[in-house]
């Protein structure tokens, strides 16, 4: 079957079986490999994307259900929030193996978009839909705080 939607601002049409996941379509049909498989059960968040601005686990999303929608992935996020976050993650060395980090990045982007200077507790709560196994949580939280500080400076 054929499904048309928008990925990172570009219209796309993919040919897949019904009940094929958005995750596999992004990775294997569209070559967007920053969205990663972790569990296939909506538990870990490695596959996190935005659909019409809302966070979703793409492993649990059927391609046909995204018809006509706007999908954004880690590699496609643009603008001051994405830039501040990307730079901050790099500068503080956020993450360790960084397999989880692209999914965390999407969750943090969504948080900073609606709350540009979140409290540490709000960061922890927002990132709780993502798992990290290396114990790099603290460095990731520092990265989100640093990005928040950058955005605050830009606002002034």
């Amino acid at each position, binding site marked *: 079957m054929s499904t048309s939607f928008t990925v990172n601002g570009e219209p796309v049409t993919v040919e*897949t*079986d019904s009940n*094929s*996941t958005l995750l*596999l379509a992004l*990775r*294997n049909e569209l070559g*967007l*490999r*920053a969205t*990663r*498989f*972790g*569990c*296939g*059960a909506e*538990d*870990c968040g*490695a596959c996190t994307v935005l659909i019409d601005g809302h966070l979703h686990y793409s492993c649990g999303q059927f391609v046909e259900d995204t018809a006509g929608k706007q999908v954004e992935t*880690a*590699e496609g996020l643009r603008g001051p929030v994405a830039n501040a976050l*990307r730079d901050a*993650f*790099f500068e503080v*060395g956020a*993450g*360790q*193996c*960084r*397999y*989880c*980090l*692209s999914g965390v*990045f999407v969750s943090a982007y969504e948080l900073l978009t609606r709350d540009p200077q979140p409290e*540490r507790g709000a*960061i*922890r*709560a927002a*990132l*709780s839909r*993502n*798992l*990290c*196994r*290396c*114990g*790099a*949580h*603290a*460095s*990731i*939280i520092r990265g989100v705080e640093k990005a928040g500080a950058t955005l605050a400076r830009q606002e002034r």
Partner: protein
Amino acid sequence: MATAAPAPLPATSRRLGDWFDLSTPGKVLLKTGKVELGQGILTALLQIAAEELDLELTQMEVVSGDTGLSPFEAGTVGSMSIETSGPFVRQAASELRRRLVNAAAMRAQVQPNDLATMAGGFTRDGEVLPDTFWTVLGDVNLDAAFDGTAPLKRHEHYRLVGTSAPALASKAKLTGAAFIHDIALPGMLHGRVLRKPHAEAHLEQFEAESIRRRKGVVAVVVERDFVGVLAQTEHDLDKAMEKVAAAANWSVPPDERNNTVLEILRSRPSVDAVLRDDLGGEAAGASGLVEATFTKPLIGHGSIGPSCGIAVIRPDGAELWSHSQTVFALRDQAARVLGCAPEQIRVRHVQGAGCYGHNGADDAAMDALLLGRAVPGRPVRVQWSRRDELIAEPLGSPMSVRVAAAVTEGRIVHWELETRSGAHVQRPGWNGGINLLGPAAISDDWQPAAQRDLPAHNGGTKNAVSAYAFPQRVVHQFVPAMPFRLSALRSLGAFANVFAIESMMDQTAEVAGIDPVAFRLAHLTDARARAVIERAAAISGWNEPSPEGFGRGIGFARFKNSGTYCAVVALVEVEEQISLRGLWGVVDAGLAINPDGIIAQVEGGIIQAASWTLKEAVPTDGSFLTAESWRDYPILSFAEIPDIQVDIISDPANEPTGVGEVSLGPTAGAIGNAVAAALGARICDLPMTRDRVIATLMA
């Protein structure tokens, strides 16, 4: 406490050209057998090489863990790469610089000592010579062996070592393909193997035809207990695998159903060895024994990315891509399975998700190789499911540690410790076995070797002997016939042994009526050990009063009693469950090559150990593993992470030591002691779940 001798240099090639390649002008390529596991080792090794060569990091490139290009190095295991490979790379780089300088001096007709090197160029009295590393290369013999006599740069002249260079290629991981999972080769098929429900299960019957007819299925491979599927796409494979389990009929062994992991550990026979005995037959002192038994369950690796491997059968051998820690051992086992020479196999390391020991990486690569035999010339990619990870990867052994101690006049005068454990290492090739799931399902000749533990002071005995000064008797009870697949998981036996020792230190301190920090210091003469404990107490506000319901605790160990020193302080709040409110760590790893890298490793170890301590136990029914998803094996979440601070004490005069595993045991000790301080009662069994807190409160 014994001082450690510097680690001996590893048995590997001393031909300089096996370590360095300068064939690309402007670049020096370091070739290493060590692999990046997310721990930042490649960055650290490049810092060491660039330092000796006076190069910028941007002038260095690296090839790592490629059995076709890298010099042989033993696996990237046991936090040993900085201790063993680091000095070797340093010597090789220093020798390379010496040969380059000699060649340039010959051309300029000056003495080598008159030349300095900078960014790949040569200077004489501040004047830049026309030659560079790459123009004199023709006069340099890279074939000759090096003997380790080239003079090493002095620490006070370091520019790169001791600075926090960012980890390599970290940006790509946010923006696209970066892991083995992301490799797509032309014509690649997707495969997966049905894991046996139990190590001793046998396949009675399998309905292959219905699977073969499914859309996209290219082959169904059935060989004795091995069932695998090859499909055109991941989606086709996922759909086929949903039906494969139901198509298989297994006979399973009669089992100790209902028995817990610890009951199995205690009921099976053990081989006992005395590791140390200062007590002779002496009985405990007059004050009587304080006694407790501390336990740790089966623990999993739980990497966020599942195990993944790629293989292609070639007319003259095979190529594999793997995130293995031991690429050379994997190559040798692949050769054994194919019946060819090791040189006919090329294994290339590609990064996987975080690696904390012997996980399923080698199994996945071997799965791909075994399935690849059905489709010679076509690459086969195998990516495990989350359930495969939870039930088939090697696990960290359960342990039970009994400690009995006596205190007289503020000092421990008697200490007995018995540590009981299954094996801690069963890597590919160990003890003569292939030790991988796929081959074991296929042939009697490919069964895993009998489980053995590592020599004394490693494996289950790691940190079983206490570093504190008191007379001690330490016994190891090794249980060889555990019905679980056990192998190396971060810090091996040190996690449970240090948890037990540090818990008993607090229990005896309480009997003595002495503050736990002061009590530890009273049993330590090593200035470096004392310094990490004192700093941890200072930065954590040790002497500040805790609010009601809160407790502070400390844990300390020197890893292996010869490596890095680490002290951890935990602040917890206990209601019905335990909440972490603060964690502080201090390490002394000698010369700090990359301080941020050290902090990341120690901080990560502390958080991972907090997760093990509070949440983790692999669920079982007898010797069957029952987890289906993360919900059956919860780990610490972002919401549960407290503020955390890690400090480094670094003296460049001390040799650098590994940091990957040092903070795990001290963290369990610190949390256990903090919980005991908050509750007024001690929880001796890990994990310290809500149920165990409630049971302790009711007792």
